[in-house]
């Protein structure tokens, strides 16, 4: 039979690469699609940006105002100028340190919001429209698929918490004399980064696990908020009953804040049993979420 | 009861359509968006024409309860009451057309038997396979023994076995005197049931009637007749002499010959003596563009 297509099919001459980062294209494509709608981006990251700018100004002002104020006072009281300046600098750096830990604490809510909004549709929507058929018939296994999705949520969460935090830290370092902040208070940067990563990893796992269970994005959204609200309420009720110490380990927020009390207040704070239990509680929850995810993804792979 | 339906004028999705449909099976075909579903919904009285008038079994169909009892409609959408069993679903709908509970059960049972669904009649419909869902939908449409059955895409997505059983059910119903109007995307499916077609395109009636008669009207396209013969070149030479032949194509490697003529009847009249008198070894001869698919192609451009 004579065909009259004008379309032409051409073979592919090159080689298909088998690099281990097959999740990368999945992540890039998810990221590109998620950032296409500007309104959610603006609503979520607008406040984050404003908070970051305000915090930057405040860090800057702490150095200037405190430094100037303290030193003039010192001069008046007759101490020598150099040591007065040095003392003031140390004081303002301590203030900035506290400010940074507080900043991370405050921004954690944005981390939760961003992960929820951008992450809750990632798996359930694929399942709803059967897109996993297209993915799993390719050289992409469950782990690659998970990584692609996880890195996507993680990125959005990081932009809400970690990235602003690092900017503030950078501001603190650059504005301190001779980068003294890095030398003397550098540990806070490490610990606050680790703390932010804890938030990002745990929230992303919860969001993805709930997304893998939900039939569509809206339900997953409600599910994530329900999960956080319920666990908080659970702890509240337990607190009323005087059993807060124990039940707080069942709330991701409770655990994270307990960890923050230790991690961000270092070196002053002590690694108490309570903190340890918080780590265990959070770890168990993340483990549970990953277990659910593994089960659900296996089912998705087999449903091709 | 030849005068089954008549409607004039402009309706949603349809434009200035006038036609009559008779008994037996009539196939409703057309490309996507041609207005087939709109047309069927109009007949079933689900929507009202925005212009023009329409009579089904002599009555105005829109929201006409008396007519609903004489008409069965099987829509395309896969919408069942998932919790009900097949039996409950069918008897419930039969009751809606005005039967008592007992009668409804009896009719539903008989209909489910006809569509070969008795074994699963007491299972909830959500456990049904695709073929079973189609059949339960059909059962509710035929349970009250309608005079006219309107079915929208009944065979889509079914496997060949389910397809065959439904096809023979339709033929059976038609032989019992039910008029059936049936839409489909798959032309050979329609062809296996009937030669009577209605072809819609862009909301307009493009053709109606028996496929071969419709083909005869398309004089713009010459008839193509395909031969297989042992000596195709010799045959081509002989056919060249015939006045009505307008072109001949020989493909010698598979001994085929394609002849075009504008007057098929005349051609055949002249052909028989030619072949009878020579030794061409004709193994087959058939019209290459008389089937529904060719007619569809010529009409829908």
């Amino acid at each position, binding site marked *: 039979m004579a065909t009259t297509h004008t379309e032409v099919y051409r073979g592919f001459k090159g080689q298909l690469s088998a690099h281990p980062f097959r999740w990368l294209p999945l992540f890039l494509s998810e990221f590109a699609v998620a950032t296409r709608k500007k309104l959610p981006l603006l609503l979520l990251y607008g406040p984050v940006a404003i908070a970051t700018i305000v915090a930057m100004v405040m860090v800057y002002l702490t150095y200037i105002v405190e430094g100037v104020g303290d030193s003039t006072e010192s001069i008046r009281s007759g101490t020598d100028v150099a040591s007065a300046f040095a003392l003031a600098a140390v004081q303002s750096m301590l203030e900035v340190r506290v400010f940074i830990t507080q900043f991370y604490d405050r921004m954690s809510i944005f981390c939760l919001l961003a992960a929820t909004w951008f992450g809750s549709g990632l798996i359930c929507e694929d399942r709803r429209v*059967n897109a996993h058929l297209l993915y799993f018939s390719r*050289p992409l296994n469950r782990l690659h698929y998970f990584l692609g999705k996880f890195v996507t949520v993680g990125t959005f969460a990081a932009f809400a918490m970690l990235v602003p935090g690092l900017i503030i830290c950078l501001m603190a370092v650059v504005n301190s004399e001779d980068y003294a902040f890095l030398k003397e208070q550098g540990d806070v940067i490490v610990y606050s980064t680790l703390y932010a990563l804890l938030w990002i990893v745990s929230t992303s796992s919860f969001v993805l696990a709930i997304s893998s269970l939900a039939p569509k994005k809206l339900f997953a959204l409600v599910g994530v908020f329900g999960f956080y609200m319920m666990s908080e309420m659970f702890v509240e009720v337990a607190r009323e009953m005087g059993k807060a110490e124990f039940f707080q380990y069942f709330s991701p927020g409770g655990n994270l804040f307990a960890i923050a009390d230790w991690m961000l207040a270092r070196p002053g704070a002590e690694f108490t049993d309570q903190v340890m239990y918080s780590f265990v509680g959070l770890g168990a929850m993340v483990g549970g979420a990953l277990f659910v995810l593994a089960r659900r993804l296996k089912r998705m792979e087999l449903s*091709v | 009861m030849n005068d089954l339906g008549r409607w004039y004028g402009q309706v949603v999705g349809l434009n200035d359509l006038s036609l009559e449909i008779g008994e037996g099976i009539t196939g409703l075909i057309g490309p996507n968006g041609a207005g087939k579903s709109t047309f069927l919904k109009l007949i079933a009285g689900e929507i009202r024409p925005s212009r023009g008038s329409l009579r089904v079994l002599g009555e105005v169909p829109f929201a006409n309860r008396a007519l609903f009892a004489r008409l069965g409609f099987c829509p395309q959408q896969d919408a069942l009451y998932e919790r009900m069993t097949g039996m409950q679903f069918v008897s419930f709908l039969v009751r809606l057309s005005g039967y008592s509970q007992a009668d409804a059960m009896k009719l539903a049972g008989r209909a489910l038997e006809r569509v070969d669904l008795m074994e699963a009649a007491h299972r909830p419909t959500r456990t049904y396979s695709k073929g079973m869902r189609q059949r339960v939908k059909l059962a509710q449409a035929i349970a009250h023994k309608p005079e006219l059955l309107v079915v929208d895409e009944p065979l*889509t997505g079914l496997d*060949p076995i389910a397809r*065959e059983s439904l096809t023979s059910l339709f033929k059976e119903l038609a032989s019992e005197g039910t008029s059936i109007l049936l839409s489909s995307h798959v032309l050979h499916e329609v062809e296996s049931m009937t030669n009577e077609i209605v072809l819609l395109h862009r909301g307009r009636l493009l053709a109606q009637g028996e496929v071969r008669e419709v083909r005869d009207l398309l004089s713009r396209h010459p008839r193509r007749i395909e031969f297989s013969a042992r000596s195709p070149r010799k045959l081509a030479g002989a056919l060249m002499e015939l006045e009505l032949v307008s072109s001949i194509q020989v493909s010698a490697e598979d001994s085929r010959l394609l002849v075009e003529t504008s007057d098929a009847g005349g051609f055949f009249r002249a052909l*028989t003596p030619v072949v009878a008198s020579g030794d061409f*070894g004709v193994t087959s001869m058939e019209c290459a563009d008389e089937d529904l698919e060719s007619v569809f192609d010529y009409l*829908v451009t």
Partner: protein
Amino acid sequence: MLSLQNLEVLFGTVRALDRLSVEVPHGSVGLLGPNGAGKTTLIKVLLGLLAPTSGSAQLAGLDPRRNADKLQLRRIVGYMPESDCLIPGRTGIELVATLGRITGLSNADAMTRAHEMLDYVGLEDQRYRSLDQYSTGMKQRLKLAQALVHDPLFLLLDEPTNGLDPKGRRHMLELIEDLGATHGKNILLCSHLLPDVEKTCDHVVVIQHGRVIESGSIEELTRAEDGELNVEISGDTAAFEAELKAASLVFDSRGGGHYGMSLAGGQADADSVFALAHRSHCDVLSVEPVRSSLEQVFLSVLHEAEGEKD
């Protein structure tokens, strides 16, 4: 191309594939069977998603049971699923290019191939449109394009013509035929529409209850005995029948000038029919050797298998 030996898949106690053995040659093959026969399970095994309980499968020499081959297998297979599986919010080109990258094409190659494939399936004008606005026909073609983006050796097409209107169906079938005949793709086509299979495939494998009940070339399966003819004539049918009787031919009249007849001695050509018609002053309208359609063959094979089981 594809070879299965005693392939068995158990889901608990349910035997989805029951010692399935078949050798499938290169080319286009139709995989037929009623719903629930095990076609989907077979596809899962071929994609390396489901490990067979016992037996082996080999596709182009690769064994889905070996871990190293599993992913390689999916590089040489293009899969077009039956269901709508296109992610809303993406454009056609985006989806195809992304899937190409996931399969291992470089960014530049993925983009080039994606554009070429969309051109090939005839979606050139819609490539930048969001998938939400695609019609059924466009979705099917896009699904074909994504299966082709990495230029696989082997295509698994699951109901590619589902939901298409006559024009869309024909276009799809032409593409499949072109891929198989001109571009050397090995095609495994699952379809409920047997005429589609007949048009595009050379070979069929029929499975039922997880077993192969028929396998062979369509040409052979549908061939009838020599000398069996379907004839249509117009004119004086009584005279024609008299001539047939005089020539002591076996025939049956189906009304309206349609006859089925068998020529003496399995004679291949029908010249004698023309002669008889000429003598009775009738015109021959068509003469065709009897060929059973694939649909008929399929149904009779299934019924036979059912009968054996009982």
